[in-house]
């Protein structure tokens, strides 16, 4: 039994579509088997709500009179990149405030913009005959600016590491606060609800796929940076570490602060919780084989984040079922676990997307191009020009 996207969209339009979340399909397959599930179910919704540092927004401010070709831009004292035309800028989520340090930064500017708050804009320029102004100080909000869209270079990591700390002191990392002597371990993936773990070989998620992003419609723009499809995989296709990634795009003005949330990890810096939901069409029985994946089938590798090197020592693999139980075992020690992504919020997004598909307000898309299934991540070596 195979189904096309067009056939599924017809069912969505006629109100006959059958949708389950990636959690609900697990028991459905157990009760009904692969073939019947492939025939009965049309769409499975997946989701994640996690800190995703590689995020940011493009903004076009509009032209002042006299006009300015902004070369340096600050939004609420947070630097934005302005080396693009005259009044375009990119504000990165992890950029820190020049006045408040880690208490405020790019992600907070983005959240404040979404919330409709006024933002202080300062820009400087060298001045040209066509853009004579050399400085501007003004205020903007999402209604005064032209375009504002999130363009996140790397989101929705397909699995991720588990972090722990063997050293005698507390360390502060992008995986959160890690207590000494294996005092705790943190993990990040939404596991069985995670989009890319339910479509491990990118059969349906591709460039152009319409998704839920930050409370509104978004799209997969490209493979994300550090896209690493050749990571070692288990027989069920699940990679045992960070593998595929997605670059996402969506209209910031339509987003909600319920699904985009600025965050500060003490001692590390600023990041942004991004809520993403991806519908997966049940095109055939093979798809059901992937969609039935559950936490106990998904493994991640535990790494020692106290080793300040690119390659960190590993303490083996643990399943998401173990991670979610609240403790794992490392070196015969019981280590408490905590998630840095919200499973509750991921579940909420999966249900919102399910409802939108059921009530006909969200249709599915065929990718315009596939994501690469080959390729690895290169390292940055320190070399002289002659050595390269």
């Amino acid at each position, binding site marked *: 039994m195979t189904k096309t996207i067009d056939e599924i969209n017809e069912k969505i339009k006629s109100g006959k579509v059958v949708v389950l979340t990636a959690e609900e399909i697990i028991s459905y397959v157990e009760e009904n088997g692969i073939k019947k599930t492939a025939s009965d179910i049309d769409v499975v919704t997946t989701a994640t709500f996690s800190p995703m540092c590689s995020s940011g927004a493009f903004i076009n401010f509009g032209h002042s009179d006299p006009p300015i070709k902004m070369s340096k831009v600050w939004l609420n004292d947070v630097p934005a990149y302005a080396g693009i035309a005259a009044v375009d800028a990119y504000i990165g989520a992890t950029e820190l405030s020049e006045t408040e340090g880690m208490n405020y930064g790019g992600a907070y500017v983005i959240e404040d913009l979404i919330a409709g708050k006024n933002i202080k804009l300062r820009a400087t320029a060298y001045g040209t005959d066509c853009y004579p102004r050399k400085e501007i100080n003004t205020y903007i909000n999402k209604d005064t600016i032209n375009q504002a869209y999130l363009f996140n270079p790397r989101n929705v990591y397909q699995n991720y590491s588990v972090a722990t700390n063997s050293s005698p002191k507390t360390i502060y990392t992008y995986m959160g*606060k890690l207590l000494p002597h294996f005092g705790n371990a943190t993990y990040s993936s939404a596991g069985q609800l995670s989009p890319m773990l339910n479509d491990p070989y990118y059969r349906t998620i591709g460039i152009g796929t319409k998704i839920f992003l930050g409370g509104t419609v978004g799209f997969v723009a490209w493979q994300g940076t550090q896209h690493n499809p050749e990571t070692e995989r288990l027989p069920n296709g699940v990679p045992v570490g960070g593998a595929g990634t997605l670059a996402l795009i969506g209209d910031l003005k339509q987003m909600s602060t319920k699904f985009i949330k600025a965050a500060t990890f003490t001692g590390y810096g600023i990041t942004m919780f991004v809520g993403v939901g991806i519908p997966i069409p049940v095109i055939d029985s093979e798809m059901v084989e992937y969609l039935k994946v559950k936490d106990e089938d998904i493994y991640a590798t535990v790494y020692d984040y106290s080793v300040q090197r690119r390659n960190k020592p590993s303490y083996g693999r643990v399943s998401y079922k173990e991670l979610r139980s609240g403790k794992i075992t490392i070196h015969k020690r019981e280590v408490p676990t905590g*998630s*840095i992504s919200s499973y509750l919020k991921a579940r909420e997004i999966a249900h919102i997307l399910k409802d939108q598909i059921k009530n006909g307000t969200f249709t599915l898309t065929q990718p315009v191009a596939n994501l690469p299934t080959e390729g690895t991540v290169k390292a940055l070596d320190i070399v002289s020009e002659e050595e390269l």
Partner: protein
Amino acid sequence: MVTEKLMLIFPPNIVKKPVVYRIVKDFDLEFNILRAEITSDLEGKMLLEIKGSKERINECKSYLVKEGVELEEAAKGIILDKDKCVNCGICISLCLGKAFYLKDNYEVNFDQNKCILCGLCLNCCPVKAIKSKI
């Protein structure tokens, strides 16, 4: 019999007085020292769990105040702001008393009674939903 958690703050002038000893001797209360420290202001801070009759506990509190010990209701020392919390759960892995926990629906919850005010959670929350009143 009731159990109460109390934060005792000893100003520098009474740090050397054997006040806690009298809790057992004079008031027949059972106590467990959950935490004790000398702060940089040379104050003594002690988190006690005391068990006994409500009446004796109240008498003991009056005695402590008379001796110059400041009392704080430790039960409300740490507060989880549910409006800010995004229910990630990083705090759960850092909580010595297992006061932070995940409900069956994956909502993060906080049980004041289990909190031993270790403070490990204070700088872990990425959305600043955990606050201290002490």
